[in-house]
């Protein structure tokens, strides 16, 4: 995991996962009115979403954005790019998203990304592994913060001097 490209990808997964979770968690339980799902050209985005997740319905995080099809299309494009196999596999990205969702207490995200992990072949042991890492580092981080420990593992890894890929893979 020494290449920066891997960490850029991970960071984008963290960001878009949190973005989807906060909206889904906030709005789904309220029963807030959601606009009718768009049809026609705008509906093609929904078909892409269904196909990407291999399901018949549109996940809540996207459904709640349906009132503005152009906005939905851009959010979806960013999410699709973040979760597509690149240097990190989609399976790994779903594991990251699951750990983020658990850490941020996102009920919607935890359920959704657990489902995606399983769909992508992660077994019960693998799920437990991600839960264990998430739990252990939720402990270490709070101990470190409570004692205000200074980082002592900075600069142990090599510096990646490759140029910016500019989205090229």
């Amino acid at each position: 995991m020494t290449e920066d490209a891997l960490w850029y990808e991970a960071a984008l997964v963290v960001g878009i996962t949190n973005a989807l979770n906060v909206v889904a968690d906030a709005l789904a339980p309220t029963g807030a009115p959601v606009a009718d799902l768009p049809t026609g050209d705008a509906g093609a985005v929904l078909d892409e979403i269904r196909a990407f997740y291999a399901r018949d319905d549109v996940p809540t995080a996207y459904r709640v954005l349906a009132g503005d099809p152009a906005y939905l299309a851009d959010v979806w494009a960013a999410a699709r790019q973040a979760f597509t196999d690149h240097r990190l596999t989609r399976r790994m990205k779903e594991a990251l998203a699951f750990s983020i969702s658990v850490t941020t207490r996102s009920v919607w995200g935890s359920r959704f990304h657990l489902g995606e992990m399983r769909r992508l072949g992660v077994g019960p042991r693998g799920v437990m592994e991600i839960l264990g890492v998430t739990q252990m580092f939720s402990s270490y981080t709070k101990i470190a913060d409570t004692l205000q420990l200074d980082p002592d593992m900075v600069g142990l890894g090599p510096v990646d001097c490759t140029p910016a890929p500019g989205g090229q893979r």
Partner: protein
Amino acid sequence: MPTVRLRDAAEYPEPARKLFDLAKAWFAYDFNEPAAMSRVMAWDPEFGGPHGRAMKRAMGAGEFTRAEKEMVAAVVSGVNACGY
């Protein structure tokens, strides 16, 4: 700056220092002094011992590699806004 004085390895009793050897082997890196978290964990070996074992069990290679798990750990730490 830490809210406690982190003791040098030499200030710990011998049984606690065994945790430093385990941590050194785990990180495969020769720190001048054991990592701060290792020294915190060695403060109470009855906590640090099982906590460390749970961590190693969680971080060991399984369906996910240790490297992949280190990335998960880094992400969890980042989301928790932990600079350590």
